[in-house]
């Protein structure tokens, strides 16, 4: 839930029927549904970890490139 404690929030008694008319219910800041956690299969988790390791390895490679660039002979 968002913004429900905000000072500029209108009271439900204000005439905002037109807002409900043009916005879909889940567009209201106070009515957004929580989808909840999705159960991840072993294959999906493995894929996510492989990609995370891939990114970390590539960051190491970039760091090596940075080191090389700073120590390159002019």
């Amino acid at each position, binding site marked *: 839930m*968002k*913004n*429900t404690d*905000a000072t500029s929030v209108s009271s439900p008694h204000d005439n905002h029927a037109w807002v409900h008319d043009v916005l879909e219910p*889940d567009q209201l800041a*106070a009515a957004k*549904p929580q*989808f909840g956690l999705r159960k*991840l299969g072993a294959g999906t988790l493995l894929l996510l970890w492989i990609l995370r390791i891939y990114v970390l390895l590539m960051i190491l*490679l970039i760091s090596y490139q940075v080191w090389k660039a700073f120590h390159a002979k002019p």
Partner: protein
Amino acid sequence: MKERYHLRLPAPESLKDLPISQEDLKRAEDRRDVKRHREERRPIKLFWLLLGPGILVMLGENDGPSMISYATTGATYGVGFFLPFILLTFAMAYVVQEMTVRLGAVTKKGHAELINERFGKFWGWFAMGDLAFGNLLTLVTEFIAIRAGLGFFHVPSALSVFGAFLIIVGAVATQRYWTWERIVLSFAVFNLIFIPVAVLAHPVPTQIVKAFFSWGPIPGGVNASFILLVMSNIGATVTPWMLFFQQSAVVDKGLTPTDISHGRIDTALGALLAAIAAIATVLACVPLFTSHVDASNFQGADFAQALVPHIGSIGASLFALGLFEAGIVAALTISLSSAYAFGEVTGRSASINSPIKENLPFYAFLLAAAGIAALLVLIPHAPLVFITLIVNVIAVLAMPPAIVFLLLLVNDKEIMGEHANRPLGNVFGIGVTIFLILAGLTYGILTIFPHLFPTS
């Protein structure tokens, strides 16, 4: 049958009792116009109201380092392989970005928010960390482009950087998504300034047509610098911030499933315009290739200076203005994408429609991201050249995990229902992911074994 998300919404009668925030009111005003024009069957006005996120994300990605990359491409390889290749990269960008339109319109949640909710805070913070790091480096390069572009007109560095920061402050101070979007769109139109610059370079039409059909020539053949430029051109088109920005902008704009077709047209139009501007930048720098100018170490304003003898001072001035435009549009959009992700991961309102006094951390994060980047550019002897060169490569390397999250989300029938990816969408999506992973691995192999490919 899995439970569909809309079944978990409050009952319709209780919705009327919910409080309406300022954010809701502003979004409702925009949607009221959309509703009216849809009912009155005014397609052009309706499209005018609904366009924005797609064009902005594509022209925003034609940013400082991207334009330098395209300029280097034109100066190094002339008219040849890279013209159709750039078109291909924008087609890939469309495939990826179209999915974010559907996700945002159907779930009404930003990309970081969905990763957080569906995969948990652990993966949510990882995604946010990748984005924040990549965005900070990219923002630095945008300020470099702004400084280089205005430096051509002898504007002092501090003044150009501070002026650009003030533009960012002014745009978000509107506290209205619609106004912010129109301000940025009015800057983004100037990305097409590279078209007259290309015309001034007198490209040969038959060479261009031949290049599109033959995917060649590749002067010097496939070597290490060619592969790095391929990587750089991919990184100039398909990057993680684009996913986060467009999905959140779709939500902030208030698009719904009814608007998905307009969102697709908006994204396709953006991709087309950005591809035209990118190819125009390549063509504008072809005279440097034909006169054998070594542009391998050129930075922003160097291209404009070197082009003066070939396209005149007016053409060079337009090129420099284009660099400024590329930098400022990207700085505006990328800083907002960081703030959107921050708001979504921390459970705050992630909307530029929210009032500053109620959502101070969101605006503070946005301005801090832009402010830190601006200050870094002004630090004497900072390794700015290296950051510019490496930023597109980092984008390519960080993209595969981001696309995998995107594919998992867009195939999640529990949240997407009938708008989930179809088999053909997955073929394209998985194809782009594999392509990007292979590009990243090639870069890695090239770094470890630099002599595997010829160096020149």
